Structures are given as structure tokens and as C-alpha cells.
């Protein structure tokens, strides 16, 4: 497809948000939020309940109107969705408990009729691990199977951009791993994915970049490995009789080993986890530059 330059310019990012604001009565749910998501990227939005994550995502999906700000999703303003635009977007909602009397196969086939070039429902059921449940009614499925249906419905139209709103809430660890494999597969095929989640290990496993949202703003953004100065933070060396923070943990361990003449009792060496960084970020609530040096809290 050959496109004029001005369209390509606007399409550099799959999503571009500037100064987004949304208020519900007295509550400023989104208070001037900026966001860029590149094509083909897996982008995770982290934040506590009520931080404005879901409101933001629903504005991007075309479900909610904004009060202020510029928003472009796949080259269009989502407040004025068209069928063509909707056909390029896949949505997996946070809560979907429709108690349909249709079977899994019937549901996928039906949703496929809305798209120009849908995936094959039978192949898709195989890929998301629903092949054995194809003839079951949606109502009879377990929570994890339901979520697979949700994801299958989200991707059946071969979306360029997929929104996943807290996709694995309530999953057991094994189901969560399988789900991550599925999402990683979609990402490898070039689907741009925007994911909101409460699970930091999920963001770490899937996302190329994360944004931490608190009080309606992005307070930190970047690679999950280096977010909030995580990559350059001091390591904590702890053992049964004490702990230190140091830039040279190897030297510290060697020194301790000499002191104890071999094994160090109860030795652990840790760097701040994404969770440590995240908790500090949402408590501070102040915007932080990515990669800024940080001191690590002494208690854990």
C-alpha cells in the first residue's frame, strides 16, 4: 500500500497521546497524560486501581470521550471511530462475563463475519488452546477458558493493535505462563500490544516498555529492566548477621567469605525488583526521569 508522506508521518506511532484529561464529577481520573506507543511494540501500563489506567485505555479504544488532549490511534481520533478503524483494532475487555448460550466455535464464527479478512476460527481455537472446548457453550467454560475466548475474539479480525485490559486476573500460574506464550507469539508476528496489568512479573515478561501511571499521569516510563534507575541501583548483600548496600557486591561477598572462612550464613544478593521500583514510584507520585540514580530502601 503506497501512502502519502503526511499520512506516514502521522503513523510513526501506533498511539500518540498528549495532555489527555478526563474528569468524573469531582474526580480527575486522567490529569494530563502523555504516551507514545510504537508500531510492533508491547507496551504495558502499570498502576494502582483508580490511577486512570482503564479510563485511558477505554478512551484509546473509542469507548469513552475525553475532556481534553490530543489522541491518535492508528492515525485516527478514537472519539470518531469508523468501522474500518474498528476492524484494525482488537479489544480484550477487563470484565466480560456474558453468559452466552452459544458454543465457542459458533461465537468465533459469528464474530468473524464482521471482518474483511478474519483468522480461521478452527485454527485460532487450536492456537489459544480451546480446540477441546470448541463445542462447549461459553456459559460452561472455566474462568481461564473464558479468558482464552476473550483473547481469541480480540484477535480474530487480525488486528494491527490489540488492547488487553488486565488479561490474566484470576489465572493460576500455569495458565498465566501459557497466556504469556500466546501474547509473545502475537507480538512476534508484529501485532502492537497495549496491556494493563497489576502483575509486575507479567509486565516484565511481556513488555518492551512500561509506563507507570499514578494519579492520572505517567510517573515513569521505559524498559522494565532499567525503570526508575533499576539497572544502575546498588545491590543489597544480606546475610544472617547484617546487610549492606554496595556498587561492588562481588567484592563484598568475597570479603564476607573470608570473614566466615567459607560459607556465608543466609547469604542473598539482590537488586531492586520491578515491584520495589513500582511501589516507590506510586508512593512518590512525582514524575521521575528514566535512568536517574536511585538509592534503595534499606528495609524490605
Amino acid at each position: 500500500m503506497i501512502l502519502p508522506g503526511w499520512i506516514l508521518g502521522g503513523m510513526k506511532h501506533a498511539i500518540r497521546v498528549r495532555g489527555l484529561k478526563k474528569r468524573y464529577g469531582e474526580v480527575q481520573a486522567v490529569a494530563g497524560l502523555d504516551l507514545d506507543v510504537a508500531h510492533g511494540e508491547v507496551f504495558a501500563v502499570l498502576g494502582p486501581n483508580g490511577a486512570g489506567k482503564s479510563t485511558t485505555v477505554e478512551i484509546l479504544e473509542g469507548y469513552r470521550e475525553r475532556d481534553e488532549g490530543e489522541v491518535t490511534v492508528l492515525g485516527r481520533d478514537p472519539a470518531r471511530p469508523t468501522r474500518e478503524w474498528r476492524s484494525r483494532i482488537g479489544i480484550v475487555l477487563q470484565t466480560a462475563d456474558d453468559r452466552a448460550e452459544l458454543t465457542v466455535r459458533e461465537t468465533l464464527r459469528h464474530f468473524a463475519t464482521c471482518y474483511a479478512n478474519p483468522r480461521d476460527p478452527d485454527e485460532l481455537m487450536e492456537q489459544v488452546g480451546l480446540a477441546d472446548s470448541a463445542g462447549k457453550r461459553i456459559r460452561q467454560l472455566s474462568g481461564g477458558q473464558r479468558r482464552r475466548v476473550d483473547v481469541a475474539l480480540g484477535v480474530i479480525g487480525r488486528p494491527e493493535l490489540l488492547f488487553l485490559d488486565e488479561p490474566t486476573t484470576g489465572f493460576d500460574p500455569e495458565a498465566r505462563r501459557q497466556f504469556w506464550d500466546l501474547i509473545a507469539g502475537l507480538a512476534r508476528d508484529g501485532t502492537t500490544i497495549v496491556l494493563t496489568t497489576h502483575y509486575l512479573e507479567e509486565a516484565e515478561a511481556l513488555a518492551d516498555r512500561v509506563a507507570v501511571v499514578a494519579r492520572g499521569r505517567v510517573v515513569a516510563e521505559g524498559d522494565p529492566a532499567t525503570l526508575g534507575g533499576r539497572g544502575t541501583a546498588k545491590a543489597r548483600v544480606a546475610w544472617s548477621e547484617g546487610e549492606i548496600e554496595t556498587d561492588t557486591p562481588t567484592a563484598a561477598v568475597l570479603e564476607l567469605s573470608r570473614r566466615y572462612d567459607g560459607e556465608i550464613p543466609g547469604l542473598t544478593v539482590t537488586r531492586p525488583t520491578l515491584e520495589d521500583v513500582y511501589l516507590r514510584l506510586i508512593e512518590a507520585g512525582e514524575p521521575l526521569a528514566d535512568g536517574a540514580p536511585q538509592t534503595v530502601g534499606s528495609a524490605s
Partner: protein
Amino acid sequence: MTATPAPAPRTAAPLPSPIKIALARAAVETKVLFRERDAVVFTFALPIVFLVLFASIFSGVAEGTGVTVAQLYTAGLIGSGVMGTGFQNLGIGIAGDREDGTLKRLAGLPMPRPAYFIGKIISVLVMTVLQVAILLAIAVLFYGLELPSEVSAWATFAWVFVLGVSAAAVLGIAVSSLPRSGKSAAAVISLPFVVLQFVSGVFIPITELPDWLVNAASIFPLKWMCQGFRSVFLGDAGAALELTGSYELGRVALVLAAWLIGGLVLCVTTFRWKGRRDG
């Protein structure tokens, strides 16, 4: 679950036609309707139970006209059945779709939104045709109802039926936005329906109601639907039982069409795709 096929290159493949999607919606809605087996059984049974009750409580022939109780109640119960499936069942059903996220999910699809409504209306038509067929069969077999033989009577039946179902369905769609939640929908939507049945000539002949009630009932479509169906099943002899001595079919058409148009306007302007708690 890993090897997902690469997305096909974006071509300018046209989206499926709205008519195709609307028909797919109709097929799915009808299928779902009939799979809720208990609901189907009770929807079909309700007018039959009333017919059995009324034909047992009252009997005989209306003075000087030769109109039987079975004729009178068959006509009224068809009207009430149309209103029951179109207005009550549909309104409660859509309120449930809104509560559990079905509507929100559909709103995110590249589906022309009227396709949803057309699908609902067609499924209601199918359901109501069957309901009326069963009611008529019972009335003929057990209560000696004689079906009209003139083509003109069936033509009247057809237009009153289609206009009535359509008007009831768009009002059902419109009223579904009224309840605050899916749970309260049955209570909110059933009250006006039950009251209308009492004042529109379904349970009680309209000639026995005080004037002010008749005037109030005349605003609503059920009274006119029942009047139209009486013209089909009671024939010319029954016209003497009407308040004006005539079935006023022109007015029946006018009032039902007005409700259909008004209901459509309400649907377009007030329909909510999300629950109240969902903003």
C-alpha cells in the same frame, strides 16, 4: 499455542455488507433465544395458560353477536403475546446484555450498530410467530375457535402483527435503557406491561372500563393491537362490541405506526451501550 500465522498484508478488502452482518445477528439471536429452554417453554405457555383459565372461568356467547369467549380471548392474548415477547422479554434481555458486557463487546466490533437491533427484531418476530401459531392451534382444537377464511382478514392480521411486533420491539429496545441494572429490569419493565394488559382489553373487555381508563389506554399501542386482532377473529359480528361500533382499522395503523417511529427515535437518541456503573 505459539505459532500464530503472520497477519496477512493489509489490503483494501471491503468490510462485509451491513445486511450480511444483520442477518448473522438475527441467526445468532434466534439461536440463543431458543436455547434458553425454560424461557421458551414459559413464553409459549403463558398465553395458553391464560386462554385455558379465561375459557374455564367465563363461558358462553356475547349477547346478540354470536361472539364466543374463545374468540375474544384469543384476539386479546395474541396482542398480549406480541407485547410480551417484543416489549417485556426483549427489554429485559437487552438490559441483561448491557449488564454483563455483551453490548460493550459488540460495540467494539466493526459492526454497523443497527445490525444489532435488526437482529433482535427478527428473532422476536420468529419467536412470536411460533407463539401465536401454538396459541391458535390450541384455541382451534380445544375451544372451537373458527379461523377466518377470507384473505382480507389474514391480510389485516399480517399488517397488524408485523406493525405490532415492530412497535413493541423498538419500545422494548428503548425501555431497556431505563432500569438502573440488569437485576432490576424485570421489575421495572413488567409493571407497565401488566397494567396495560388490564386496561387494553386483554383480560377485561374494554367496554367495562371507566372512560378515563379507556382514554389513558388509548394512548398506548396494546389497546390498538388487540382491536386489530379482534377484527380478524371476531369478524363483522363483533364490531358491535367495540366502543365506537367499529374496529377503526385506520386508526389502529396510525397509532401503531406512530409508536414505531417514536420508538425508533427513542432508540437512536437514548440507547446506552454500557451499564450505568460503567460510565
